C-alpha cells in the first residue's frame, strides 16, 4: 500500500517513454504541424506574427504536455481541487483587474503570457468533478448533497465567465462539467427534467441575452437577413468552404481568406480556411485525425484501472468532441456564432495550453493505467 501511495511513479524515465501512447502522440504532432502550415497561410503565405507566435507556443506547450505526462496520475488526482480553486481565483482576478478587449474582460496579463483563465477552466472542471465522483460512493451519487455540491462546482465558474461576458466558453464549461455528472451516474431522469426545464425557460434566458447575442441567434436562423452586417461572417464562411470543392483550391490559394473576405480566420474560422484550401478530402482528413485522438483518449480511459482516470479521459474526450462539433457547426452554419476555438488549430495560447494540459494528464493516465487511486 505504501508503494501505491507514492506520488512519483515507480517507472524509470525510459519505461515512461516506452509507455506513452504513440498513436495519440503522433496524431497531436501531426495536428500541430498542420496548424503551423495553416497559420502560415492565414498570414498570406509569409512567416509573420501569427505563424511565429503559434509555432513558439507549440514549441513550449508540446514539451509541457510530455512533462505533465511524466507525473504520476496520483499527483493530478491529488492536486485536482487545488487546480480548480486556483483557476477560480484567476477568474476572480479577471473580473477585478482583467484586460478589456472589444467589450469583454477575459484576460489577465502574467507578463510572460496573456492568459484567458476561462479556457483553463474547461480542463479544471473536468479534473475537479472527476475527483469528486471518483471519491463519491455509488449510493451517494444521486443524493441531494452531492448533486448540490457538483452543481455548485459547475455554476461558480460559469457565473464568473458569463459575466465577462463570454457565452461560448461558459457553455463549453457547463457541457464539460455535466458530462462528468452523466458519467458519474447521476440519474437520467434528472438530466431529462433539467433539459425540459431549460427548453421551457429558454425564452426567458433569451430575454436576458445581450443584444449582440440575440442578433447572432437571429442571424443563425436566417443569415441572409443582413448579408453585409451580422450575417457576413457566416455567409462568407459558407462560400469559402463550399467553393473549396472536393480537393480544395490548393495551399495558399484560398481566395476568400487571401483577399480578406473571411473574418477571424486565425481563430474561430481557421477550419474555413483549411477547408477552402484542402477541400472535402482535407476536411474529412482533419476530422479523422480528431476522431483518432478522441478514440485513443477513450481507449486510455477503458484500460485505466482507476475511476478518476476513466472519468477524466471520457470527460476530456467528450470535451474535445464538443469543441470540434461546436466550432465546425458554427463555421458550417449549423449553429449560431459562439466564440469557440478549434483545439490546437486555432490561434490562441490559453486554449492550446488547456488542451495540452488535458493531453498531458491523459498520457499520464496511460503511463500509469494500472495505478489504483484510493
Amino acid at each position, binding site marked *: 500500500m505504501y508503494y501505491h501511495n507514492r506520488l512519483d511513479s515507480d517507472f524509470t524515465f525510459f519505461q515512461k517513454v516506452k509507455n506513452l501512447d504513440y498513436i495519440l502522440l503522433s496524431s497531436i504532432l501531426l495536428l500541430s504541424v498542420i496548424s503551423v502550415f495553416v497559420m502560415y497561410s492565414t498570414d498570406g503565405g509569409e512567416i509573420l506574427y501569427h505563424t511565429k507566435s503559434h509555432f513558439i507556443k507549440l514549441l513550449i506547450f508540446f514539451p509541457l504536455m510530455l512533462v505533465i505526462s511524466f507525473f504520476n496520475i496520483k499527483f493530478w488526482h491529488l492536486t485536482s481541487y487545488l487546480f480548480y480553486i486556483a483557476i477560480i481565483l484567476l477568474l476572480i482576478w479577471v473580473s477585478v483587474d482583467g484586460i478589456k478587449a472589444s467589450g469583454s474582460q477575459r484576460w489577465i496579463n502574467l507578463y510572460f503570457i496573456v492568459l484567458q483563465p476561462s479556457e483553463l477552466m474547461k480542463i479544471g472542471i473536468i479534473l475537479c468533478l472527476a475527483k469528486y465522483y471518483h471519491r463519491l460512493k455509488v449510493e451517494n451519487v444521486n443524493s441531494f448533497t452531492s448533486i448540490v455540491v457538483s452543481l455548485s462546482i459547475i455554476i461558480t465558474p460559469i457565473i464568473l465567465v458569463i459575466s465577462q461576458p463570454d457565452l461560448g466558453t461558459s457553455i463549453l464549461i457547463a457541457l464539460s462539467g455535466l*458530462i462528468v455528472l*452523466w*458519467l458519474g451516474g447521476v440519474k437520467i431522469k434528472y438530466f431529462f427534467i433539467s433539459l425540459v426545464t431549460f427548453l421551457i425557460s429558454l425564452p426567458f434566458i433569451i430575454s436576458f441575452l445581450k443584444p449582440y447575442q440575440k442578433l447572432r441567434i437571429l442571424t443563425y436562423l436566417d443569415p441572409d437577413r443582413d448579408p453585409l452586417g451580422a450575417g457576413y461572417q457566416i455567409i462568407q464562411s459558407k462560400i469559402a468552404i463550399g467553393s473549396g470543392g472536393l480537393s480544395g483550391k490548393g495551399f495558399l490559394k484560398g481566395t476568400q481568406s487571401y483577399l480578406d473576405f473571411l473574418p477571424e480566420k486565425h481563430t474561430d474560422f481557421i477550419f474555413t480556411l483549411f477547408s477552402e484550401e484542402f477541400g472535402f478530402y482535407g476536411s474529412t482528413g482533419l476530422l479523422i485525425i480528431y476522431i483518432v485522438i478522441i478514440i485513443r483518449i477513450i481507449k486510455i480511459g477503458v484500460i485505466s484501472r482507476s475511476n478518476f482516470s476513466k472519468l477524466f479521459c471520457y470527460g476530456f474526450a467528450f470535451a474535445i468532441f464538443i469543441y470540434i462539433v461546436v466550432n465546425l457547426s458554427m463555421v458550417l452554419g449549423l449553429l449560431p456564432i459562439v466564440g469557440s476555438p478549434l483545439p490546437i488549430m486555432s490561434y490562441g495560447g490559453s486554449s492550446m495550453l488547456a488542451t495540452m494540459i488535458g493531453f498531458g494528464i491523459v498520457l499520464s493516465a496511460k503511463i500509469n493505467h494500472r495505478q489504483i487511486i484510493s
Partner: protein
Amino acid sequence: MIKENSSIRKEDIINRRMFVIGAAKIIIFTGIIVRLFSLQVDNNKKYLTLSDKNRIREWKLPPTRGNILDYFGNIIAGNLKVYQLHIIPEQVENFNYLLTRLKNLLQLSDKRILNILRLKKRLKPWESIIVSENLSWSQFVKVNNYLYELVGVKPVMTISRNYPFSDIYTHLLGYVSQPNENDILQNEIIQDRFVPGMKVGKLGLEKTLENYLIGTNDIQRYEVNAYGKRINQLEYQKGKQGSKIRLTVDTEVQKLSAKLLANKAGSISVMNIFTGEVIAMHSSPSYNPNLFLFGISNDEWELIRNNPLKPLINKTLSGLYSPGSTIKPIVALSALENNIINSNFKVKCTGKTELYDQTFHCWKEKGHGFVNLNNAMKQSCDTYFYEIARLLGVDRLKVTAKKFGLGEKVLGEYFENEKKGLFPNTSWKKNNLGKGWVLGETLITGIGQGYIQTTPLQLCLMTAQIANGGYSIKPKIIVNNKPFNIVEAKKAMEEQNLNNFNTQLVKDQKNIKIIQEAMFSSTNEIMGTSYRSRIDDPKYQFAGKTGTAQVKRISKRERELDLELEQIPYNDRDHALYVAYGPYKNPRYALSIIVEHGGSGSKAAAPMAKELFKLIIDRDDLRKKQSNFEEIDI
C-alpha cells in the same frame, strides 16, 4: 471487498454511459461530414460562383468611337491619343506638396486644385484622380522629367475625339462632350456603357448616330480584396470600336464653302441632283468643336454665344428665310402645270401693281415693259409673278411647292434641329391665324415674301429636283443610308439609282424644260440677274436664279432714297440668295447659297456659285471613281 465491489459497479456505470455518448458522437460526426459534403460537393458550383463574384470585379473603360469619313475616305471625326495626368492618392506621401508642385508645373488654377481636393475626399485612396485631361506634349515632357520627384503621379495615354478640320464640319457633325444626366437617362446604350471620362455626342450626327458610333467598352477584370482594392489584373478584354460611317460630303467643296462665307452669316448647300447626296452643307459662322471635348472655358463660350452672327445656329437646316425670287421657278412651274399660262403669256410691267388701294412694287422702279415668262424669270420681274400668282392662287401654288420639298424636312431624322419651314395656303392661315386669306398675300407669296419660310437645304433640294427633270429624290448624307449592316447598305445603294426616278413631280416634261431654259437665261444672257457670275465654258456652265429677301418692309421714303448697302444698318439689309444647278448641258449638281444681310442675290450670292461650280465639276470625275469604294466598313 465492499469497496472493491462498489468500485467495480461504478466502473460499469461509467462504461455504460460512455457507450451511450459514443453512439451520440458517431451520429453527430456523421452529420457534420454530411454537411461538409453538401456544401463542398453538392453545392460546390454555387459557392464557387459566389466566391468568384466576391473576388472578381470588372472595370469598364471608355469605348472608342467610330470614325466619320467624308466621301473620299478622309477622316473628319477621328480619335487622337491624348496625354493625361492621374494621381493615385494612396501612393502620395505629401499630398499638399505634390499639388503645389503640379500647380507650378502645369499652371493649374486654384479652382482646379480645390476640385482635386474635393475628388480626393470622395474617392477611395486607390482610385485615381484625373488632374489634367489633356496635357500638351511639352507639359507631358515636363511632368515626365520630374516624375521621380512626383511620387503617386501617373502619366496616362488615352484616346479622345478629334475633329481635324476644326470648324468647317461643326454644324454637320456636332461634337462630343461629357454626358449629362439627360444624355444618360434617355439612351439605354449610353446608360449601359457609361464610364466616367466617356464622351457622347451632343449635337448633329455625333448625337443622332450615337448608337452606331459609340463602340463597346474595353473591360479589365481584376481580383479585388474584401475592401475593393485591386490586387491583380486577370484579363483585359478589348472592346470594339464604334462603326465607321462614311458621309456623302466632299471636304474640298466644304472647305471652299467655308472660305466663301468667311466672316459672313449664311449657308451653302450642294447636292447631287440624281442621288440626293449632300456634297457640302455649311453654315457660317462656325466654331471649333474641339473646344468642347475637355469642357469649354467660360470666356470661349461667351465669345461664341455672344457673336452677333450667331454661330450656334445651323442655318442650313434651322435657319428660316423668305426665299425671295428663288421661289419664282416654282411659281412659274405651278402656273404652267395648272395651265394658267403658257410660255408666251405676257404681262406689262410698269414698275408697280395696284390692288385694293395697295401698291405692289417691282424691284425695277421704271418697270420692265411687256415681258414673257422667260424674260420675267431672267430679269426677275416681280410684276409678272404678282400677276401669275394672282391667277394661280396660293392653294394650287402650295401643291406644287410641297411636291418639290418646301415645308417638309429634308434630311428627316438625322438632325434634331432641322426645321420644316412653312408654305402657307388659305386653310393654313384660317387654322393658325384665324383670319381669311387676302389676295395681296397671294401676290407677295408669288415673289417669295410674306408667310413663306424655307431652309437653305429645302431650296437646294427644290433646285435639284427642277434640274433633274422633275423627279423626286431622297436627300442623304450617309453613303449607306441605313448604317445597320453591309448587305443592306450595299443593296440600298444599288437600288437607289433606279428608285429615284420613280416619282415624277410634273405632269408635262415640257414645263420643266421651260423653267430650266428660263433659269439658263437668267444666268447666261445679257440682262439676266446673275449674268455677271456666268461661266461660258460649257463644261462648267450653270443655270440659276437669284433672290433678294427683304427682312423689313421698305417704307415709301426709303424706296425713294434708294440707299447703298453700306448706308443701311446691318440687321435691316436684305438677305442675298442664289439657287443654281450645273453643268447646264448635262446637269449633275444643284446648290443653294444664302448670305444673311448680304444685299442683293446677284451681287452677294451668285458670284460664289461661280467658284463653287468650278470646283464641284472638277471633282465630279474623282467622285465617280470613288463610288466603287469597296470599303464600306460599318
